[in-house]
């Protein structure tokens, strides 16, 4: 069994392109060209040059000695928090802006929840001098003011999504509607491994630089490419897709996906899609999603805006359904505690999304000799206010 997308964009039963005809020409143009463009030598050179000189790659693979001592196993941290703009998101936006240029597009749209992907998109648009419109739920705009300001400072227009629940799901709807209305000159930079084919596969390929580097770095440090486990948090799942990518078909590497349980999986306020979701269609993809019996998409909840999405990328739905991935749900409280612990043991304040991954030790026991790589997907600066409020700092 393969855990990558087939040519129609299916991961097992999940994926595909469930889109209205209005979006067909846009996605079809991308589908026909994305692999070819990504394999062009000039594209690869430009992509890797920017990742190196602009993003600051390769990011370190750091042996977390004190954390390892505490949990009696060998823990490595893949430092995506050190990427320019503070998270892994920029790997994908660099790739997609280069793709958009080669497709002759002169206008970029994006959706954002907490604002990380919006900032990463606004950044590359500034870099390339391309017009940028970011859709963001009205509620998220109010609670993520610093990132809104960053996007504006970078020259992007931030448009409030006023429909539905006015959060990430609705910002995505608005971006898709914009694309329907501007099918010729505009490229839509989706921020995660979600959406219609080819987005999940394309975004996963751009993020796969993470596991490509882990392999080389681990070989250098441990004399072998494969860890025993790779651990990542999953909202839509782009950092996880990148961290798993080159290990998907290596069964001896355990894949651990950490979802946000919010106030508890059965509390009614959760974003644990693997536990609560059913197969359905969201944003053009067949995947697991949280919905009513009647097929209406429901609102998730998590303290972390980046995990606050009612679906999960089709790759992850397939990893869950097939049993290839082990899925663990972590509550707000557990994540916050783990975030504080990593801060004080390693001197690294993680994004709250990432903090969920560090909270698995009560649920997953590792052997002393296990090599466990955590993808430290983002830094916690953007979450300081939430940490301050939570810990009364």
């Amino acid at each position, binding site marked *: 069994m393969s855990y990558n997308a087939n040519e129609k964009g299916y991961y097992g039963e999940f994926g*595909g*392109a*469930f*889109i*209205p*005809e*209005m979006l*067909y*020409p846009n996605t079809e143009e991308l589908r026909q060209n994305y692999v070819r463009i990504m394999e062009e030598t000039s594209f690869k050179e430009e992509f890797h040059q920017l990742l190196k000189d602009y993003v600051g790659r390769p990011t370190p693979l750091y042996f977390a000695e004190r954390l390892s001592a505490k949990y009696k196993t060998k823990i490595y941290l893949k430092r995506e928090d050190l990427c320019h703009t503070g998270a892994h998101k920029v790997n994908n936006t660099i790739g997609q802006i280069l793709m958009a240029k080669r497709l002759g597009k002169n206008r970029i749209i994006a959706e954002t929840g907490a604002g990380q992907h919006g900032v990463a998109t606004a950044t590359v648009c500034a870099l390339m001098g391309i017009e940028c419109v970011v859709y963001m739920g009205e509620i998220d705009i109010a609670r993520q003011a610093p990132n809104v300001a960053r996007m504006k400072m970078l020259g992007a227009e931030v448009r409030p999504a006023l*429909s*539905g629940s006015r959060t990430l*799901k*609705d910002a995505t*709807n608005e971006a*898709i*509607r914009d694309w*329907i*209305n*501007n*099918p*010729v000159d505009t490229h839509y930079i989706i921020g995660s491994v979600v959406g219609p084919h080819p987005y999940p596969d394309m975004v996963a390929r751009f993020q796969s630089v993470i596991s490509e580097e882990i392999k080389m770095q681990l070989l250098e440090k441990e004399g072998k490419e494969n860890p025993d486990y790779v651990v990542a948090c999953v909202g839509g799942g782009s950092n996880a897709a990148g961290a798993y990518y080159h290990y998907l078909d290596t069964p001896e590497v355990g894949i651990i996906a950490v979802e946000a349980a919010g106030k508890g999986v059965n509390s009614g306020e959760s974003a644990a899609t693997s536990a609560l979701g*059913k*197969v*359905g*269609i*969201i*944003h*053009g993809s067949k995947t697991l999603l949280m*919905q009513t*019996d*009647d*097929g*209406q*998409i*429901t609102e998730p909840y998590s303290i972390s805006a980046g995990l606050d999405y009612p679906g999960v990328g089709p790759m992850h739905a397939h990893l869950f359904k097939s049993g290839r991935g082990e899925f663990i749900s972590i509550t707000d409280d557990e994540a916050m505690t783990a975030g504080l612990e990593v801060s004080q043991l390693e001197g690294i304040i993680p994004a709250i999304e990432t903090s969920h991954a560090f909270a698995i030790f009560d649920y997953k026991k590792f052997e002393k000799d296990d090599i466990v790589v955590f993808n430290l997907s983002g830094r916690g600066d953007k979450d300081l206010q939430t940490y301050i409020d939570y810990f009364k700092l």
Partner: protein
Amino acid sequence: MNRIKTKLQEDKKLLSIYFTAGYPDLSDTVQVIQDLEKHGVDMIEIGLPFSDPLADGPTIQESSTAALKNGMHTELLFEQLKDIRKSVSIPLIVMGYFNPMFQYGVEAFCKKCHEIGIDGLIMPDLPLDVYKNEYEEIYKKYGLINVFLITPQTSDERIRAIDAASDGFIYMVSSASTTGAKQGFSDDTEQYFERISEMNLNNPQIVGFGISNSETFDQATKRAKGAIIGSAFIKHLTKNGVENIGGFVKGIR
């Protein structure tokens, strides 16, 4: 014969109206259908509301949100429509998004539509290839016509493929846009109407999106078999409730 096909054979330009089931009030569904037929509308698209209507502009989004808030859901719509064929004889089409149909069960949904006397379905986010591979037989078994959309960006080759897969009419989206009336059509739209007309497709075309009054209706039906009005009628319902539906229809033709 399927009522849609019979209707398409009539020697006239067809006026089709879309409305959202359960809007403005939950119990208005049947009344709206009956009034539209009484005032000479040729065909009706009954919108099954969805939480995330990607292809719709603000007017239909808001009506969907309101209908869901009113308590509309798939089983209730079928319940409201169960005796509709005792009073209404024009073609009825259910239009919605695929996920609610998928959750209900595609076969169960089609069977129910057949029992009620629904003639066709429009599910804009059910792609052509998935329909052909997985669901065409089920639709046929229950006598349902599947209506596909085309847009100004749809290639001739794909239009031919859609024409071949269609067995009723093609829903011709007037411009690259979400639903919601714009004022008038551009020269590009006229050229697109002409291009499609000259393709001599097997299936007649009915134009939707951007039709809001008699002028746009006449323009759209100059070459096409008919036109569909959605958002403009929803606006009428928002303002007037189920009063004076006849007045709205008379304003169109």
